[in-house]
């Protein structure tokens, strides 16, 4: 009995639990920075550790040691609490994703809805971060992030529900198992949904072309402007974990997720697929300029939302026709 509990604790804390997820966060940040740099004809992280792989960890540790400045006019409680919230929300959502086996650490029917909810909560955390800072740049950034969320939330929900409709289940683990047993990935079953998911996740992660809330050249660092030291370290960690979460969501729901291929363990194929999704994010990040908030809202509501509705409608027709 104690052996089972010890094993569960190991799973929760180490693999595929918190330690593993944090390490994946650092690894994914390194891959993103290296790939982004190589497209731009430069090296990216180079000196810390072999090929600079320790750079994200070094940045995190450095930030932990820096002075933590708190603006006098800010809302202290919220200001201190939001970084922790922002770092732990993606961690919570990652527990729902199947990593080491074909079931997540926590699984129940309806955890897809919890996932969508956590995506929304993350943006609320961003809003609160900017709002509690009481600085002009932060307020502009947080307002923009809320506007952005209002635009991408519905298409995001629709394209995540698409596979749920096809598999008749609201559980992520169930979707992964359906793809494994039917030998088909939703990547080619619902390609429009895949494209829309990537775009919406780019908006969720605030990556170019949608990094409007933290547009460096316009509003310094947007909602993150006033944070420094440990709080900024938490934000960076949260951002890395969010990227892992987004890549994992793409990998699990559209790319088949953690599936054992012969003797290769599921975790391995999961990491590969998540890295593939990450490379798509990085590549798109490198290709475009930043959009303006009104252009983004218009584009989302005029094009993306109708396309997402069309995808779900198409799916229903397909299901109705083929049973």
């Amino acid at each position, binding site marked *: 009995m104690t052996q089972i509990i010890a094993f569960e604790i190991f799973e929760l804390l180490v693999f595929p639990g918190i330690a593993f997820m944090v390490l994946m966060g650092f690894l994914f940040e390194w891959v993103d920075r290296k790939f982004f740099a190589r497209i731009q004809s430069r090296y990216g992280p180079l000196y810390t550790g072999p090929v600079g792989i320790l750079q994200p960890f070094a940045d995190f540790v450095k930030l932990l040691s820096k002075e933590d400045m708190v603006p006098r006019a800010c809302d202290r409680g919220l200001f201190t609490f939001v970084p922790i919230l922002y770092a732990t929300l993606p961690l919570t959502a990652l527990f729902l994703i199947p990593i080491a086996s074909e079931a997540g650490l926590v699984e129940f029917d309806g955890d897809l809805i919890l996932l969508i909810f956590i995506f929304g909560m993350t943006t609320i955390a961003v809003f609160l971060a900017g709002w509690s800072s009481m600085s002009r740049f932060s307020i502009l950034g947080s307002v923009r992030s809320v506007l952005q969320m209002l635009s991408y939330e519905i298409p995001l929900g629709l394209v995540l529900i698409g596979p749920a409709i096809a598999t008749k289940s609201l559980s992520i683990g169930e979707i992964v198992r359906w793809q494994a047993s039917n030998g088909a990935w939703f990547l080619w079953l619902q390609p429009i949904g895949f494209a829309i998911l990537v775009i919406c996740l780019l908006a969720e992660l605030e990556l170019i072309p949608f990094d409007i809330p933290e547009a460096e050249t316009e509003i*310094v660092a947007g909602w993150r402007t006033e944070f420094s030291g440990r709080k900024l370290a938490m934000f960076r960690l949260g951002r890395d974990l969010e990227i892992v979460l987004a890549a994992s969501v793409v990998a699990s729901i559209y790319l088949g997720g953690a599936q054992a291929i012969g003797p290769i363990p599921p975790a391995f194929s999961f990491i590969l697929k998540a890295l593939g999704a990450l490379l798509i994010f990085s590549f798109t990040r490198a290709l475009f*300029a930043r959009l303006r908030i*009104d252009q983004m809202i218009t584009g989302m509501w005029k094009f993306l939302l109708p396309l997402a509705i069309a995808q779900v409608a198409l799916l229903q027709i397909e299901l109705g026709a083929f049973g």
Partner: protein
Amino acid sequence: MGYASTIKVPFGPQHPALKEPEHFLFEVEGDTVVGVKPRIGYVHRGMEKAFELGTYTHDLYLAERICGICTAAHTTCYTQAVEELMGIEAPPRAKYIRTIIAELERIQSHSLWIGIVAHEAGFDTFFMYVWRDREAVMNLFEELTGGRVLHAMNAIGGVRRDITPEGASKIRKVLDYFEGRTKEYLRVIRTEQTFLKRTQGVGILKPNEAVKLGAVGPTLRASGRKDDVRIDDPYVAYGEIPFNAISSDGCDALSRTLVRAEEMIESIRIIRHALDKMPVGAIRVRAPKVAPPAETVSRVEAPRGELIHYARSNGTAKPERYKVRSPTLANIPSLCKTLTGIHVADIPIILAGIDPCFSCMDRLLVPVKGGGGTRHIAKLRVG
């Protein structure tokens, strides 16, 4: 309980959008800018006074360091002014070499600017590519003049180094490479949808407004006018080289980008023509140490627009008064006009649109009558 409907957003003196420190206080209502108050003078170095303290030869190096990106323009303007004061003229070959260096600098400055405007729009990859290619021009400068940024090519009475046939062939190679790259940039600027969305229709400056507010350079030429000092008032060898002033009717940030990119191609043509037709002969005449009492105004077309130097001599080896009016200062009123009524997100693109070089610009001297006391430089208000 009334809340103000506008908030004041400060841009600078330290801001990621500005490469040099200046202060712009924006009044923002929602996402629209309703007012702007610029405050300039953060890079004031007392250069005009420093000019009076050195001899003409020493001041040449001071003029070179007014700005890092337009050094050749400043030294060309300076040497022209001082040569006029002294009553000497640079030999024809020196004039051609000055033209080549000035046009190479235009290419370098415009490619730097295209990178900057891409960065302001969030288009970082394009920024990196442009600056990578710009290295070819910087290395060329190092080979020709001994320095990447500060060329020290112009001297009073001519130029200090000659362009050998070897140097000429190096220039041609770099120009061929750069022409291909510039055509590629033009293709990207014209077809990249996200970039077009950020620059098309942004920062409209109507032609009559541009003239009334005193805009110069590519900012003016992007509003339909064809004013170019190289054509209106030819200096060095421009009178003998046929070329066009590039202008565009768009009046927006996209036109300014296209005008500068096409000016780069035009500069490449000018340099090729100058290399082909370069006269043989001396590159320098001896300059006297002392200039007879006189005053003169010298104008050149710096990469940013019309640059004016005024010099007054009094028979000694040092100038009595030297004034520099750089193009960025002339563009500030039109900048403030275009900065009202826009989205907050358009601010950096419009700011970058005039190609601001604040270190060139800050040169206000406020005389205080009766001695003593200080006076606040009045804030520019454009309405």
